[in-house]
């Protein structure tokens, strides 16, 4: 790990100004991914701007009934917040399916969204990786890739985005709020993470010097239920092989709202628009859920060793949607 400067800031403006004035600056919040990557040599900031004590640690009700989640709200606190747990259970469940109790006490909302892929080649600086070193190649394409993408990848990068929380946010139509030298802007959570194309070095739409300040959730639908389910190699404390976040509203046996997102399958949370379109207005039956999931996953292009993810995601989506529909039917 190279030496670096350190600066603690007290306001968002100060943070953004400090970042603009210092080449090689990075923001530090919980540090659970950044410090890890600095130890690996993957990240080598020249200065860390500590934003962990900014007043962005609140979960606030919005006038429209939505929720504003500050970027430094700890994952554990967010999962436990009654407003989240009671009104957006999919988000609470996704957070609790990730990492460990210790990590959730430290990791922040912003940092969770910005965490980087766990692809083994990305983490090893002695190996090529287009995401880490553009143009060096992607050994994962024909190498160790059981855990990597089946959707949205490119010949340049087949990494997956590892956050569970981000999958729930995508299904909830959240927006990500950014503050940079040129002011504030908001990006839909579904668009925040980028597909790699030929520039896999850019994980997200965040621009140089921008600070992630908040995530906003629209008001929850009163008639909808939501759930997150994750499959992993051990019972806890492992990244997803595949996961599903679903929000479903059923009226008189017919789907009136469906939001479905997959995790562990793609370089970003994979919002399943094709499946949702197939579900809208359809009877809430297991057959229709299966058909809709299959329509979405028809686009999958598995690699040599990760073809299992397609039937797994299919099965998982059907299980979660069926469970939500059954609960809706049960009242």
């Amino acid at each position, binding site marked *: *790990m*190279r*030496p670096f400067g350190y600066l603690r800031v007290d306001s968002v403006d100060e943070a953004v100004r400090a970042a603009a004035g210092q080449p090689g600056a990075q923001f530090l919040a919980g540090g659970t991914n950044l410090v890890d990557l600095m*130890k690996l*040599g993957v990240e080598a900031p020249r200065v860390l701007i500590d934003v962990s004590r900014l007043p962005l640690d609140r979960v606030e009700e919005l006038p429209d009934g939505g929720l504003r989640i500050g970027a430094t709200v700890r994952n554990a606190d967010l999962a436990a917040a009654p407003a989240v747990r009671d009104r957006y259970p999919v988000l609470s469940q996704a957070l609790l399916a990730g990492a460990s109790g210790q990590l959730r006490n430290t990791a922040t909302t912003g940092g969770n969204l910005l965490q980087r892929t*766990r692809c*083994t080649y990305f983490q090893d600086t*002695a*190996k090529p990786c287009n995401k880490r070193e553009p143009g060096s190649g992607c*050994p994962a394409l*024909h*190498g*160790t890739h*059981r855990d990597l993408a089946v959707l949205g990848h490119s010949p340049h990068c087949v990494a997956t985005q590892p956050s569970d929380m981000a999958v729930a946010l995508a299904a909830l139509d959240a927006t990500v709020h950014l503050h940079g030298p040129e002011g504030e802007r908001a990006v839909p959570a579904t668009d925040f993470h980028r597909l790699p194309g030929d520039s896999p070095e850019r994980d997200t739409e965040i621009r140089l010097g921008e600070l992630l300040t908040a995530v906003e959730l629209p008001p929850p639908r009163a008639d909808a239920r939501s759930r997150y389910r994750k*499959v992993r*190699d*051990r*019972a*806890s*404390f*492992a*990244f997803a*092989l595949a996961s599903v976040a679903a929000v479903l509203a059923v009226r008189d046996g017919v789907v009136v709202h469906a939001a479905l997102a997959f995790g562990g399958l793609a370089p970003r949370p994979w919002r399943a628009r094709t499946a949702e379109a197939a579900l809208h207005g359809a009877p809430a039956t*297991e057959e229709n859920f*299966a058909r809709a999931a299959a329509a979405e996953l028809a686009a999958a292009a598995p690699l040599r*060793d*990760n*073809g*299992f*993810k397609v*039937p*797994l995601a*299919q*099965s*998982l989506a*059907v*299980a979660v949607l069926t469970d939500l529909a059954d609960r809706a039917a049960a009242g």
Partner: protein
Amino acid sequence: MSHPPDEAPFPPGPPPHPLGEPLVRREGREKVTGTARYAAEHTPDGCAYAWPVPATVARGRITELDTGAALALPGVIAVLTHENAPRLAPTGDPTLALLQEDRVPHRGWYVALAVADTLEAARDAAEAVHVSYATEPHDVTLTADHPRLYVPAEVYGGPGARERGDFDAAFAAAPATVDVTYTVPPEHNHPMEPHAATAQWTHGHLTVHDSSQGATRVREDLAGLFKLGQDQITVRSEHVGGGFGSKGTPRPQVVLAAMAARHTGRPVKLALPRRHLPAVVGHRAPTLHRVRLGAGPDGVLTALAHEVVTHTSTVAEFVEQAAMPARMMYTSPHSRTVHRLAALDVPTPSWMRAPGEAPGMYALESALDELAVVLDLDPIDLRIRNEPGTEPDTGRPFSSRHLVDCLRAGAARFGWSARDPRPAVRRRGDLLLGTGVAAATYPVQISATDAEAHAAADGTFRVRVNATDIGTGARTVLTQIAAAALGAPVDRVRVEIGSSDLPSAVLAGGSTGTASWGWAVHKACTALRARLGEYRGPLPDEGVTVAEDTRRETEQPSPYSRHAFGAVFAEVQVDARTGEVRVRRLLGQYAAGHILNPRTARSQFVGGMVMGLGMALTEDSALDPVFGDFTACDLATYHVPACADVPAIEAHWLDEEDPHLNPMGSKGIGEIGIVGTAAAIGNAVRHATGVRLRDLPLTPDRILTARAVPLT
């Protein structure tokens, strides 16, 4: 070998005596308060920190080493390379010939060592060392028909290949057969304490704190490497954070720390980074198994073949002796057991808990289960029908063998009799349920050990033996053995272990520790007790000391086949939608001689079963064919079981009398827990789903790919 007649059978007196009592771990308080110090937790004045540099090619030579940038960093003291490092004399362990030449035998082999005033600077310096290589083509991929396979001359004291009778003819003639292949991937020990050493030279004397399973062996190897007398070296391993075989021999950290300390003239501390461990501290080699069983309609085996293909490195030969248990487990007039080995450009494999038995019994006990299905026999019944009277391969009598009792007692406890043998018929919601059983075994070995017992004038006792407590409870059980032999309360006995300055002892490995150390302790304490009987009146001020060793008792091979046995029962659930397998219940029933401390013994059995659960379900590693390394190199990618994976586990034992062991009547228990567990779980998965999976571990992708679950 039975104990000599001049030594009283143990225990010497009537109860109450401390042997067999659940004495609390002697160092437990230090461990729960954080005051127990491990190898990297000694910081002599002026201590420097070291950080190693691993090779980034799989095979080749170093052509250029640029240490200029590293040496220019603030706080950096030195960078050791093969160009400037102290010369080492060759020893029997070529993995310790570190920084001696430009050759890179595998990726991750250490090529340099940075030393600095602080840990941060050492790490930074290591990253700044620039190494150029002339690479050569490499091969790290083991296949069942690899062109470089050979049969090793010797495996674990026996032949690499063994034929008895006419296997081919018997198998061809057998009415019922099984011919199957299994694979066990490379596995990593990953003790929670990474390998670490702190080394210091003082007036020509080398003192190291090393994370080791045996400080006597470390001292011997250091003496050879540095051309020193044994009395010029002290190796301490007071507390060791697990090893599971990976600390059984000296590892790079202790050699590098000693070299760096000599080179810099400062004490040096080196803790290996977790990500380096798979390449430099050994691993369980992958094994490809072909098992063929031939049996009559009654289930009695007529032909048994277990053929194992595995790898070693180009540095040293190590054979995962996985066909060994097939030589002693079941009766079979015609048998073939073969190990084939290819020396690849891979890290050197080594011991991992129950080397040989763990993968070998996975394959054999899975195959037995397959035969039970073919014959429509209960798998316990099938094993009972194949119980041999004497050891099949040698004809030697068993000193004791209570496998059948374990199967029956375990079955009763587990509720086996109610089992419906039909597969895939127990569904609870999305979960398919199943149960399975497997046998376990582990050999009994004893090595010569020295021990010293001292009676102080104040009525207390001190016992000295260079045993190592790697978490087994050695300190505790040796206290009990000593106290029982002395006829003294345990709180008047202090046992000193974990230093090469103590009387020499075998390492903590191969489930031999308690028997080997305990016998020497028993002998010394028994002799001391006799000596004390000669005194009338107070002891002299300096007390009375007796030293003994067990060379005579251990030099002759036993005329008996000596093994511990057990039976493992598992209940699993398989999620029909996701392929996730979870163990719901695990029960082990063992026969391992006298159990000397039920509290620590239970932890040993259960701990082994937990590692077996990991072997069955979560632990997966592989060599990257392009880069030549283990890609699952850390604890995020190599999944050792987490707390949530592990249900309540029961371990039970029979009180087994065996007069042919040692004065305590004990068999080793550190390894048998892992043996058989993976097979029991795999057999339960087959019972749950109706599909047999033969490649470990049983992760969701494998369950789904095999279509073992219906999905939706």
